[in-house]
């Protein structure tokens, strides 16, 4: 009581007796084990990427040696250039770049339209609770759980009747429709977590439906909008089946082109070109993840907890 610690500074700092000051950081075996496991797991998941990158930098003679993990003796980007501009995707040999631009043309409008509609839906459902709002929301959610393969055939007929089958607007419409449930859910849950008094204050101030949406709510919804952009961009970019069916021959997305390159049956199988094309295709989602991983995790959590 009140007496000063009698032990030496050394003993004290080691926490041997009479604990004093901040608790020393200890590394227990359990913690070491956890870190060890995490490092091993991370390395394990990196192996395919490693193989892909080094294979794409090798020439075909070197690949034939079968030394999968060996670093390239004579690194070259020839395979990358070929994959981008010369590889054959069926009859044409213009590389994967056409698919890249097609994917851009499909993804950008689809992401924008689905987010605009999803955010309006979510806003209307969480603040302007009209009669039947819950029913509409329930139906939308139900849509999220229907496997989309089931509705493909009816959708083909529908888009054909609308004159959209095999066109760019057609595939954008399809992606927007399939993105609607998750976008609405995301925005509804986010808006539900905002204080309702904010909405009431804006109404007392005389703002209407659109004024509240654009001037009050959307500026506050930037984090969840980023999440929506990430989700939709990766989802639509990685889509294969819908693009193959609905986009039409002129607008086949990158994923479909990649498949065509990899499964081309004549001539030599150019593993280095295949690897380069695959990495090129995966690059956009990869960059999106790496650039915004923080928002991604935060947004998923924010959307999931409240609802």
């Amino acid at each position, binding site marked *: 009581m009140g007496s000063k610690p009698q032990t030496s500074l050394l003993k004290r700092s080691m926490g041997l007796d009479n604990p004093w000051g901040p608790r020393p950081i200890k590394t227990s075996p359990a913690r070491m084990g956890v870190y060890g496991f995490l490092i091993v797991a991370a390395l394990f998941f990196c192996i395919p990427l490693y193989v892909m990158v080094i294979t794409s930098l090798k020439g075909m003679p070197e690949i034939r040696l079968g030394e999968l993990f060996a670093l390239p003796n004579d690194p070259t980007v020839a395979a990358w250039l070929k994959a981008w501009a010369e590889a054959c995707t069926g009859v044409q040999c213009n590389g994967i770049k056409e698919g890249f631009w097609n994917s851009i043309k499909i993804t950008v409008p689809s992401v924008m339209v689905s987010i605009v509609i999803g955010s309006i839906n979510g806003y209307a459902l969480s603040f302007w609770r009209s009669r039947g709002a819950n029913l509409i929301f329930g139906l939308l959610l139900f849509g999220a759980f229907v496997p989309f393969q089931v509705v493909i055939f009816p959708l083909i007929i529908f888009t054909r009747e609308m004159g959209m089958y095999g066109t760019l607007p057609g595939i954008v419409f399809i992606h927007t429709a399939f993105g609607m449930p998750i976008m609405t859910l995301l925005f509804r849950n986010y808006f539900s977590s905002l204080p309702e008094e904010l909405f*009431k204050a804006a109404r007392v101030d005389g703002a209407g439906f659109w004024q509240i949406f654009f001037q009050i709510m959307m500026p506050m919804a930037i984090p969840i909008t980023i999440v929506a952009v990430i989700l939709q961009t990766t989802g639509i970019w990685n889509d294969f089946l819908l693009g193959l069916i609905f986009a039409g021959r002129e607008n086949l997305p990158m994923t479909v082109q990649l498949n065509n390159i990899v499964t081309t049956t004549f001539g030599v199988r150019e593993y280095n070109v295949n690897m380069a094309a695959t990495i090129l295709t995966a690059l956009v989602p990869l960059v999106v993840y790496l650039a915004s991983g923080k928002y991604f995790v935060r947004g998923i959590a924010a959307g999931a907890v409240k609802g």
Partner: protein
Amino acid sequence: MLSVSVKDLDLKYLDIHVLKKLNLDIKEGEFLVLLGSSGCGKSTLLNCIAGLLDISAGQIWINGRNVTWEEPKDRGIGMVFQSYALYPQMSVEKNLSFGLRVAGIAKKQISERVQRTAEILQIEPLLKRKPAELSGGQRQRVAIGRALVRDVDVFLFDEPLSNLDAKLRADLRIEIKRLHQKLKNTMIYVTHDQVEALTLADRIAIMKNGMIQQLSTPHEIYHKPVNLFVAGFIGSPTMNFVPGVLEGANLNVNGRDIDISRYSFLEPEGKSRAVTFGIRPENIVIGEAAESMPVKLTTRVDIVEPMGSESVVWTEIFGKPFSIKTQFEDELFETEEIQIGFDPIKAHCFDKQSEMRI
């Protein structure tokens, strides 16, 4: 002239009857406080007056106009919320001017009104800041400013001080009172804090289960509560209650007769009936002062809670825990035997069945 008038207001949520045939008239320039515990419907009533909730039946009149079907912005009201509800991405200036900009008022007039409001509330140095850069008290001041700048006749406050700490709450309370004296607007103020209600209000409406129990001045509510609920709700510590049988002016509690002929009965004393007898802790005296009181008792101290300027003494009388508020200078000790007394003129008597004051 009536400023706000609520007529036969009914509100039902599914099966829950939140407000029941509620009538309330508020005079121009009056400061009315809606007081009650949570879930009593006070905030709901305020939201109905503001037009933020659709009502099931009845009418709402503001300034002689039937606004029952009007939008909130057309009702001539300004509202202050518990969570401030400032628009986080806008500066204080933009927060204040948002409603005016939405209404399409000329820029020059907007800046004049914002300036004047900022002067009244002394928030001019904060105009360029964002809400996140303000303290709780400053935020609430801006929220009040947002109602003020709209130049409306009626202000609605929804527990505006509940999110602030005790000291700030007391400061802002006085400021709101000062503001009311200066502006002379009608103000309707919702709170669950009886101190706020008693200090601010011209009249208090005490609510329970969607009905107004008593609508009266703070003085009347404290001294003449109309029923058992109001008597128990107002006052801290709460009023002491004992059950008894009243016969004429003779109250029988646990076999002991107490003469309460000094009590002012509302109705002529009738035949014997069961009553609940109440006396506030601050109306009981201890020690020598008790000698001169019409009713005297001896008891033992259980617990003493010293609060600086006064002490609350807990004891047991008629088998019931009793609290006594005293400024007794001498220190009291537990288990000490004390003499207490009170004057029935300051007591309260309620019918056991109807719980109404008699």
